């Protein structure tokens, strides 16, 4: 290649919670906005982010999120959420609804729309073949534009890229 190679960032999404989906989407979008090439590899629970059936139904379960406080989701009073409260029925739905509302106020689009924006801006989205096989899924389970590749393919495609594991 005669000209200098473009900067390339690769994100690995291994978690399917709502709060674990947005970091890659937002950072990936920012990277594209800075002229950086973007590749996102979805593996294990992260596959839910690109599954048609679940992409707009991702949840934010308070259990296991250490240090979570109500103020983080825009509630006027900022109190900690004891882990034991997180297991109560409805807590996940409440936390998810609060976060969705807050994100919408900040003009952050829903996951499906966000992924389409990323693809339109040139991001490449890949599903991990081993996880796809393990979960008994097929190409049809995923949004348009997603390609199923092996971990080895991903490593080949991201030679020289900066990798962010989420």
């Amino acid at each position, binding site marked *: 290649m005669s000209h200098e190679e473009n900067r390339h960032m690769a994100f690995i999404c291994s978690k399917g919670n709502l709060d674990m989906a947005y970091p890659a989407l*937002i950072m990936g979008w920012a990277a*594209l*906005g800075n*002229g950086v090439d973007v590749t996102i590899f979805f593996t294990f629970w992260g596959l839910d982010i690109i599954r048609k059936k679940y992409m707009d139904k991702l949840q934010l379960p308070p259990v296991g999120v250490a240090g979570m406080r109500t103020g983080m989701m825009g509630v006027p009073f900022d109190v900690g959420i004891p882990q034991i409260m997180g297991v109560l029925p409805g807590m996940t739905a409440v936390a998810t609804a609060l976060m969705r509302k807050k994100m919408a106020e900040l*003009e*952050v689009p829903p996951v499906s729309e966000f992924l389409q924006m990323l693809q*339109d*801006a*040139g991001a490449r989205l890949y599903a991990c073949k081993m996880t796809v096989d393990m979960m008994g899924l097929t190409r049809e389970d995923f949004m348009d534009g997603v390609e199923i590749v092996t971990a080895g393919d991903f490593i080949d495609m991201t030679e020289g890229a900066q990798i962010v594991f989420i």
Partner: protein
Amino acid sequence: MSTDILTTVAFDDQGYLQNPADWTPELAEALAAQEGIQLTEKHWQVIRFCRAKAAETGKSPTLRQISLGTGIPTKELFQLFPKGPAKRVARIAGLKKPEGCI
């Protein structure tokens, strides 16, 4: 097109115009040419929208705001202003660096 006009005004270290009052359509043409872009009517549509939005809000619009506001799809914005449309348009339109993430 001559880019001599670019030496008559000041830019910050990231290439954004220092004094918004210095902006003229001729300057935009020269700035675009410097980035390898020949401005078409579609480019101007985006530039006008961004300048109007910035005048209204005091901030340069983000990529998503530009897409929603002009009705021009993301894909096309990346073709018009390759590699980071929001920042490129802001520079060409004589606006500040966009601050939003989306």
